[in-house]
C-alpha cells in the first residue's frame, strides 16, 4: 500500500562516436564505405558553402530572408544517410545537407528564398516534403505518412526534423503520440541547438534533455552529439531499422548549438554570449569529420581541392540557373498564381484570374494553364 517507486521502462541513452578531438570510438564506428563517407563530407561542405554564398545574395537583395544551416550539417546528413530512396524525408528548414543528398538542388533552394513556389516542388522521384515554415506542423504529416505505410503494409520509414523550440508546440506532442500509439515507422530527429531565435532552452522546457520526452510516449529516446555525423547516422540507422521492423517511432535528440544567426533577419548579439558561441564553433561538425577522413586516408589536400572546385561549380551554376529560370514565363507570369490551388480551376477563381489578367492588360492570355506536374497519390 505505501509509497512505492513506479518503474519506467524507457532508458535514455547518450551516444557519441567521433568526438570534438576527432577521436573515434572504434567499437561503435558505423559501417560506411569510403565512397559514402566522402559523399557525406562533400554534401555537408556544399551546404556550408551554399549557406555562405546565399548570405551574400541576401545582402545584395537577390534573395530574401532565409535560415542559415551552418553548424547543423551533421544532423540532416547523418539522418538522411540512414534512409533508402523509398523512405520518406520530412524536413523542417535547417536540413540543407540532407535535402541535397535526397535529390533537391541548390536551384530549388535559391528559388524558394527568392520567393518562388517552384522551389518547394519536390524533384521527380524524391519522396520528400518541402521545407515547412509553421513550426512542428510537419511532424504530423510525417506521422501520417508512417501510419499510411503501416496501413498499406509498406516496410518503409520516415525521418522528420524538429528544433528544440518546436518541442513546445501542441502539434509536436500530438505527432509523437500518434506515431507511438499507431507504431508508425517514424524517426523524430530533434536538432537541439539550444536556441529558438532568442529563447534559450531553459525557457523552452523544464526538463534537462529533449530525449527524455520520449518517456511520455513510451517510445525509445536517445541523445547524440549533434556535431558528430557518425553518431547521428548510427542512432538514426538503428531507429530506422527498428521502425521498419514494426518497432514504432524513436526520438533522436542531436545536441548542438546555433553558431550562426537564426535567419538573415536576426542579430544574436542581443541575446547570445560571444564566448559560448565561440566554444561551440570550435566543435562544429566539419572540422572533426575532415580530420577523421584524413586519418582514414579518404581526404587529402588534393581531394579537398577537387571537392572545393566541384562545389564552387555547383553553386555558380545554381545561381546562374536561378537567374535564368526567374525569367521564364513559368516563373514570371503572375496569372499562374491561380492555377495550382485546385486540380481544376473553379469558375469563381477563373473569374478572379480574368480580373487580374484584365488589370495586367493580359486578357488574351487569361485561359487557364494546366498544372504540368502529375498529381501525387501514385505510391
Amino acid at each position, binding site marked *: 500500500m505505501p509509497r512505492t517507486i513506479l518503474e519506467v521502462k524507457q532508458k535514455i541513452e547518450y551516444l557519441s562516436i567521433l568526438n570534438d578531438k576527432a577521436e573515434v570510438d572504434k567499437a561503435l564506428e558505423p559501417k560506411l564505405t569510403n565512397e559514402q563517407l566522402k559523399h557525406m563530407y562533400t554534401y555537408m561542405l556544399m551546404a556550408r558553402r551554399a549557406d555562405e554564398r546565399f548570405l551574400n545574395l541576401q545582402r545584395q537583395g537577390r534573395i530574401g530572408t532565409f535560415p542559415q544551416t551552418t553548424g547543423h550539417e551533421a544532423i540532416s546528413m547523418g539522418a538522411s544517410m540512414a534512409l533508402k530512396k523509398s523512405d520518406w524525408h520530412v524536413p523542417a528548414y535547417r536540413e540543407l545537407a540532407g535535402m541535397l543528398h535526397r535529390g533537391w538542388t541548390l536551384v530549388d533552394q535559391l528559388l524558394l528564398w527568392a520567393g518562388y513556389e*517552384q522551389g518547394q*516542388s519536390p524533384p521527380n522521384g524524391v519522396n520528400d516534403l*518541402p521545407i515547412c515554415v509553421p513550426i512542428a506542423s510537419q511532424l504530423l*504529416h510525417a506521422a501520417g505518412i508512417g501510419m*499510411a505505410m503501416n*496501413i498499406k503494409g509498406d516496410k518503409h520509414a520516415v525521418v522528420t526534423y524538429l528544433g528544440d523550440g518546436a518541442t513546445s508546440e501542441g502539434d509536436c506532442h500530438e505527432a509523437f503520440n500518434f506515431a507511438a500509439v499507431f507504431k508508425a515507422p517514424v524517426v523524430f530527429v530533434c536538432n537541439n541547438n539550444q536556441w529558438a531565435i532568442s529563447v534559450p532552452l531553459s525557457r523552452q522546457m523544464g526538463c534537462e534533455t529533449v530525449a527524455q520526452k520520449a518517456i511520455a510516449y513510451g517510445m525509445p529516446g536517445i541523445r547524440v552529439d549533434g556535431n558528430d555525423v557518425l553518431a547521428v547516422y548510427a542512432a538514426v540507422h538503428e531507429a530506422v531499422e527498428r521502425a521498419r521492423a514494426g518497432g514504432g517511432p524513436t526520438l533522436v535528440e542531436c545536441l548542438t548549438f546555433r553558431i550562426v544567426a537564426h535567419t538573415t533577419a536576426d542579430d544574436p548579439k542581443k541575446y547570445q554570449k560571444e564566448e559560448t558561441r565561440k566554444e561551440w564553433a570550435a566543435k562544429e561538425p566539419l572540422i572533426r569529420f575532415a580530420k577523421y577522413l584524413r586519418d582514414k586516408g579518404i581526404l587529402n589536400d588534393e581531394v579537398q581541392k577537387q571537392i572545393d572546385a566541384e562545389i564552387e561549380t555547383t553553386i555558380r551554376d545554381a545561381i546562374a540557373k536561378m537567374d535564368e529560370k526567374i525569367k521564364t514565363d513559368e516563373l514570371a507570369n503572375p496569372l499562374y498564381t491561380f492555377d495550382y490551388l485546385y486540380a481544376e480551376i473553379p*469558375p469563381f477563381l477563373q473569374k478572379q484570374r480574368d480580373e487580374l489578367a484584365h488589370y495586367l492588360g493580359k486578357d488574351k492570355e487569361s485561359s487557364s494553364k494546366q498544372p504540368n506536374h502529375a498529381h501525387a*497519390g501514385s505510391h
Partner: protein
Amino acid sequence: MAEMNMAKAINKALYEAMERDSRVVVLGEDVGQDEGVFRVTEGLWAKFGDKRVMDTPLAEAGIVGTSIGMAIYGLRPVCEIQFAGFDYFAYHQLESHAARFRNRTRGRLSVPMVMRAPSGGGIRALEHHSESREGTYAHTPGLKVVIPSGPRNARALLHAAIQDPDPVIYYEPKALYRLFKEEVPDEIEVMPLGQAKVVQEGKGITLISYGACMRATLEAAEMLEEEDGVKPEIIDLLSIVPLDMDTVCKSVQKTGRAVVISEEPRYCSVASEVSSQLNDTVFLYLEAPVRRVTGFDTPIPFFSKEKYYIPDAERVLMACRETLSF
C-alpha cells in the same frame, strides 16, 4: 431504392466508398467499435477492420494533420471531427497545409482528404456542440466546403467529396441526421461539387439557403405561397466553395429579390458573401436589398435559447414579406 435518413445515407456512402476504393480510410474519435457518437460510421469497423477504420487519440490537429500525411502518401482519408465546434483545434493544419500543399508544390503533392463534422444546432446539446462556422472555411483559400440538406444529396455529395482530388470540408447538419427519410437509389450517385440546385421554380423572390436551414426555408416558402400567393424560387447551395453564383444570379435576375438564410453568425458569413456578390453581379435587377436571415453575432446560446438563434420559418417569412413590400 431504399428509404433512409441522412445518418444512414452518409453511412452508406462511406461504406460504398471504402468498398470500391481501398485507398479510402476512416479515422477519428470513437469512429471504430463505437461506430461514431451519431452512429454514422456504423458497421465500418466490423467490415473493414482496425487498419482502415481507426479510433484515434483525442487530438483534432492530430487527426487532420496525420490525414494530410496519409493523403500525400496516396491514401484517401475521410476523417471525422466529433463536432464542428472542435475543428478549430485543427484549423491551422487545414489553413496552413491541407489547403496549400498543391499550390505550394506547384501541383506536385496534393491532399485528397475529406474532413467530416456534424455541425449546427437543434439537438439540445452542450456548449460547443452546435456551431455553424462554414464562413471560416469559405474565407480560407484552397478548401472546398460542402453541406448537404437531405439523405440523397448527402450521399451523392460525400461520394464526390471523397473522389475529389482536393481537400473538402463536409459539414453534416446534425439536426437533419434523423429528421426525415428519403428514397436513395441503389447504384452510387455522385453529384458534382460546385453546383447549386433550384429546388423550386418560382417568381417574385428567390430564397437561397443550404443545410439544415433548408427546412425553415421550405416551410416559409409554403406559408408564403399559401398566405401571400407568392411562390418563391428556392435554391439549395449544396456547395459553399465553389459557390454556384451562376445559378443564384440567374434566378435573382428573374425574380429581382432575394433572401439568404443560414445559421452562422452574420458578420463575414456565407450569407454576406452571397449578398455581396448579388449586389456586384445583378445590381440592376435588384428591386430590393438582399436580406440575410442568419444566426446573430453571438455564440449560439445554450440550448434553452437556441431556437431564437437558428432561423425558423417565421423569421424567414417575415424577411420575405419585408423584401416583397420594399
